[in-house]
């Protein structure tokens, strides 16, 4: 029984082009799965299809099922908005690449974090305020009260992404989808956010679907990966197998490029490296 089962998923654009074809993979409860691809490979569309959030005009075929123990099995492809709304946040939630567009610029952070807490847990008043503070503390934001009063533009990119993570975790989803969550961030902030995600996913025994273009980033946080090219899976398997012995020519090229850049760092000498 997999938490998420994607079987023969296809996504077609309004003008009839196949953007994703015959994509299949499963994510079990509590495991971490990575989708790797370059721009235009269809990795973000896959995330949107799983959330039932495909842009107007695009159509999905095949099957995406979510099976949360105690909440039953749900087919996402073709499901209505009401059903999908009950799943969003509670069963699955997403952290997107750019926290500035994920947050409402006109609303204080505290209000935005409160929204899912109120909706899912029915909290009000003081209890809600305490829960917001706790949610911000959980993502290691120092001064949670100051952050709660701030508007998105008043805090840094890393802090915004922490807020977006706090919102995504508010309803304790069984599956967290992270779509390039660190691509827009500086490298030291990226390291912090990856460590944070790693800790939170473990602490809450969530499943993680991590989407990214950077092989090193994705392989550092997931157990299994799938490489997408032009909407098709070209290779999948355990992280170490794919990274150490890629079979498909495209996978070999991708790993080779990443290795080449990695080697440039290795040549700098042993010193700091362990």
């Amino acid at each position, binding site marked *: 029984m997999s938490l998420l089962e994607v079987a023969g998923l296809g996504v077609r654009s309004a003008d009839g082009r196949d953007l994703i074809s015959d994509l299949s993979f499963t994510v079990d409860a509590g495991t971490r799965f990575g989708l790797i691809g*370059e*721009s235009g490979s269809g990795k973000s569309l896959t995330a949107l299809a799983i959330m039932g959030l495909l842009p107007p005009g695009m159509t999905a075929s095949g099957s995406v099922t979510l099976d949360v123990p105690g909440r039953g099995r749900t087919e996402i492809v073709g499901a209505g908005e009401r059903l999908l709304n009950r799943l969003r946040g509670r069963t699955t939630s997403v952290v997107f690449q750019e926290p500035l567009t994920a947050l409402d610029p006109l609303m204080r952070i505290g209000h935005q974090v409160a929204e899912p807490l109120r909706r899912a847990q029915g909290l009000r008043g003081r209890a809600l305020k305490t829960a917001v503070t706790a949610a911000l503390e959980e993502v290691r934001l120092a001064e949670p009260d100051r952050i709660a009063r701030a508007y998105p533009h008043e805090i840094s*990119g890393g802090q915004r992404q922490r807020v977006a993570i706090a919102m995504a975790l508010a309803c304790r989803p069984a599956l967290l989808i992270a779509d390039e969550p660190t691509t827009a961030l*500086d*490298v*030291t*902030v*990226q*390291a912090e956010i*990856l460590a944070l995600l790693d800790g939170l996913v473990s602490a809450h025994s969530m499943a993680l679907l991590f989407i990214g*273009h*950077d*092989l*090193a*980033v994705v*392989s*550092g946080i997931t157990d299994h990966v799938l490489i997408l090219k032009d909407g098709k899976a070209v290779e999948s398997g355990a*992280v*170490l197998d794919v*990274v*150490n012995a890629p079979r498909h020519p495209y996978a070999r*090229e*991708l*790993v080779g*490029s*990443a*290795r*080449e*850049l*990695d080697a*440039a*760092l290795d*040549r*700098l*000498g*042993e*010193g*700091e490296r362990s």
Partner: protein
Amino acid sequence: MSRPIIEAREVGFAYRRAPAVLTDVSIEITQGRGVALVGESGAGKTTLLRLLLGLATPTTGRILFDGDTLAPGDRRRMRSFRRDVQTVFQDPYSSLDPRQSVARIVSEPLRSLGLLRDLPRPERRAAAGERVAAALHAVGLPEDAAGRYPHEFSGGQRQRVAIARAIVSEPRVLLADEPVSALDVSTRVRIVDLLAELRETRGLTVVMVSHDLAVVAALCPQVAVLERGRVVEQGDTAAVLGSPRHAYTRRLVRSVPRLPARPA
């Protein structure tokens, strides 16, 4: 040691009514010793690059070109500066005019710098065509690229067009602002290889802003680490990034995501 081509001497910069973006920055760029400016958003890398390009004037300190202060008012010297110091920007989608053919884009520096002025008018067109063809060839684009338009090319190819434009005036220094960070990883490796090749074959000194330490390690023999507008560490790339002394550099190096080690 030869005289630096470009030098920033105790340079400071502040935008109007704002705290300083750069404080007391000194950097030397000598022939063949390309410098990478690394650091995070807001560290002042791009501002420093703009000063080195003569696109802004420092609030304190000086920028020197071939030993003399760069004066944007001195048009004759600025012209020789522009000829010697060219630039490539981060985003190849916004840095190329979509309404101009590649030939026109690549030959633009020849016109704006008046490099073919000495030729009689009828010969200029042929000479420009030759220079463009040579530049396109050097960046690995097919000859027929000249007659096409930017939208017909992929991101990596557009960046090649931008590099062709930068080298058409045969500059000594190429200043690039994150030249590969908008590109996919396999394309990124190819553009890094191209820049390394131009460095070898044309003696081009590559100075670049980058947050990608792997790209820096591959392309620039020297590195300056900026943190909040100050150079916290600079020197040979192998020394600075291989065994960093400053705490910030250590954190930067440690944060770079790495592939799982290959089994022995």
